[in-house]
């Protein structure tokens, strides 16, 4: 498992970086404070989560029909719909459209799916400039990096890092003031928006009933990308479709609250087609690329299917103790964190086989997930699958743990043995226990007490 060795190494490096941890804790701390506040103010939050999950469950169970309905609706209004079996065909389609339209510059709204298909290098190879316009994405693009978070791409950078970057790349005087830095980006990107011939965005939801794409954002760059250029291309995974317009409010009531602690994001765009006769603006031509890339294999698997409910809100990253310790880049995958660990192995295959092991299974991701995806269960399932194919040599310590667990399982069946065992343990540690804690145990029992204290077993415990 070369991937795992690389991950262990990257994670170890990252965990030695206290500055990275400060930035991550700062950002995730903000998120939790906001989330707690909006949840307290909105009593139906839990009910809306359950409803959202039910709708996703039903939608995923009828994906084929819903996607056919979505396609028919959009095509009736002149939108060109392309189903891409894999990343290469999606890239090829978009580059081809751009070439045909003589596009020289593309402005992009935030889209993890276009990261997944690695669109930017393909566009650049064709001589087309691809400009990321979400501020965080723009920052990581200037640094030739990948986003380290689904929602906050530049979470790993400080305002000083970004100040230095802008001084170098945008030739502005150095400042670490976020307001001034944002204004500088606005100025540069405004020109790009007005001169680009093509806009590309991701999709948060696609309503089959009406053939409407819903794009959620805060900055207004999504509005620009979907409105101003002559050609607009939307890119989504097959799992984004939902049945009815009436389903939408349930998702929108939980999405922003969970993702950023907002009640609703600043802009929610509903796009149903290109410019109509008589309209002054909007794209003259519109395309939708619907990507499979391993998702249908997840659909066929009764356990993995649940991973397709994901709204890409990014909350599980913030909740995950591993992510908060090492950041997104150490995972080495487009989608980092808990959700990345369950979807990546199916999207990129062996290159992500290590990710299901990059978790402590603490369950914080499942707690925060707006559609209650049982991520720990899927992680365990993927670990089991990864092991199934191999004849794994059990390590000596794993064999000891297994033997110990067997003894315990046997003893626990007889209350008197369990009681006697507890009594004996208490008697044995009595000489070395102080105030209810054992600080040091003799070898070979000292692995635990080398790093932390052990609670002394009480007398007469059952």
């Amino acid at each position, binding site marked *: 498992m070369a991937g795992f060795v690389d991950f262990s190494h990257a994670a170890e490096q990252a965990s030695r970086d206290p500055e990275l941890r400060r930035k991550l804790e700062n950002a995730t701390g903000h998120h939790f404070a906001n989330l707690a506040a909006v949840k307290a103010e909105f009593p139906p939050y839990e009910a809306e989560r359950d409803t959202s999950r039910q709708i996703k469950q039903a939608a995923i169970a009828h994906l084929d029909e819903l996607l056919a309905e979505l396609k028919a609706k959009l095509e009736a209004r002149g939108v060109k719909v392309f189903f891409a079996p894999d990343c290469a065909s999606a890239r090829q389609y978009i580059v081809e459209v751009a070439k045909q339209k003589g596009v020289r510059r593309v402005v992009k709204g935030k889209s993890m799916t276009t990261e997944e298909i690695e669109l930017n290098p393909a566009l650049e190879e064709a001589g087309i400039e691809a400009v990321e316009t979400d501020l965080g994405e723009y920052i990581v693009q200037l640094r030739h990096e990948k986003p380290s978070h689904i929602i906050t791409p530049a979470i790993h950078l400080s305002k000083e890092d970004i100040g230095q970057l802008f001084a170098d790349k945008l030739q502005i005087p150095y400042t670490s003031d976020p307001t001034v830095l944002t204004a500088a980006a606005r100025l540069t990107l405004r020109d790009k928006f007005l001169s680009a011939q093509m806009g590309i965005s991701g999709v948060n939801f696609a309503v089959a009933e009406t053939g409407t794409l819903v794009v959620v954002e805060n900055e207004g760059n999504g509005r620009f990308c979907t409105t101003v250029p002559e050609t607009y291309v939307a890119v989504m995974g097959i799992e984004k479709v939902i049945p009815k317009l009436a389903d939408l409010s349930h998702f929108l009531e939980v999405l922003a609250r969970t993702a950023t602690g907002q009640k609703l994001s600043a802009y929610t765009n509903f796009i149903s087609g290109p410019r109509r006769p008589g309209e*002054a603006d909007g794209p003259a031509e519109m395309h939708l690329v619907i990507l499979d890339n391993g998702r249908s294999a997840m659909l066929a698997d009764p356990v993995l299917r649940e991973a397709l409910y994901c709204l890409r809100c990014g909350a599980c990253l913030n909740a995950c103790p591993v992510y908060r310790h090492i950041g997104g880049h150490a995972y080495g995958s487009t989608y980092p964190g808990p959700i990345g660990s369950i979807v990546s192995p199916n999207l990129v295959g062996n290159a992500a086989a290590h990710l299901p092991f990059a978790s402590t299974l603490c369950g914080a991701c499942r707690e925060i997930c707006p559609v209650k995806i049982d991520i720990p269960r899927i992680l365990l399932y993927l670990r089991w699958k990864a092991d199934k194919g191999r004849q794994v040599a059990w390590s000596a310590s794993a064999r000891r743990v297994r033997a110990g667990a067997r003894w315990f399982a046997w003893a626990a069946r007889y209350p008197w043995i369990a009681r006697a065992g507890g009594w004996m343990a208490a008697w044995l540690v009595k000489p070395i226990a102080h105030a209810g804690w054992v600080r040091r145990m003799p070898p070979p029992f000292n692995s635990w007490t080398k790093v932390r204290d052990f609670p002394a077993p009480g007398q007469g415990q059952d």
Partner: protein
Amino acid sequence: MDPTTQVLERLRQALSSTNGVAQPAHQPAPIESTPVAAPVADRAALQAQFAKELRALSAHVIETASDREAVATLADLAGKLGVRSIGVGADLSLAAPELEAALRSIGCEISWVPRQAAENFTHRLAELDAGLVEAEHGIALTGTLAMLASPGRARSLSLIPKVSFVLLRADRILPNLAAVLNTIGPARLEAYPMVLVTGPSRTGDIEKRLVLGVHGPTALYVIVLPPSTSGAHES
């Protein structure tokens, strides 16, 4: 096999391979049924909640009692903000002559959008100091404006200029998003695009510090007009 058939066929197979697993049939989600027009007694409460939520997002909300007051407020604001040029949406529910006169009186140049900006549309909008549009609905729960585009209502007039003025009739404020989607309905959303606007453009991408006005408007002024029936008689 063409890619579309290939993907849809894969999905069909994937779904049939798990036929043994119980599949939930889709049941229409229960959406909160809300009367289209809130009873008058509730209207004040909805308006108060709408204004409070939107102000919490650093937008400015000015509640007016008559159309005449709204026109005066607009001209006053435009003057104070130093707005020299303004794009005005073509189908507003305020009387055009009064509005034009008030704005001209403070030396503000008016472009009727989209009528007078057809050529090179977005570049023309980028040169304007402000845009004035009317929202279809307000959402009290989140302080949100629902704006539908149409031939008379350009998509980008509320996006490109730095200052965004939005008119909203008080009786168009509904309790929540479900009520707004319900009222607008599938047919209208199929015909034209909509955007929900909840405060001015914002970002937290640099160390989670809130900054307003990234790409969209830096400042959002919402002028709440009296309910449509009373306003029509006054002006």
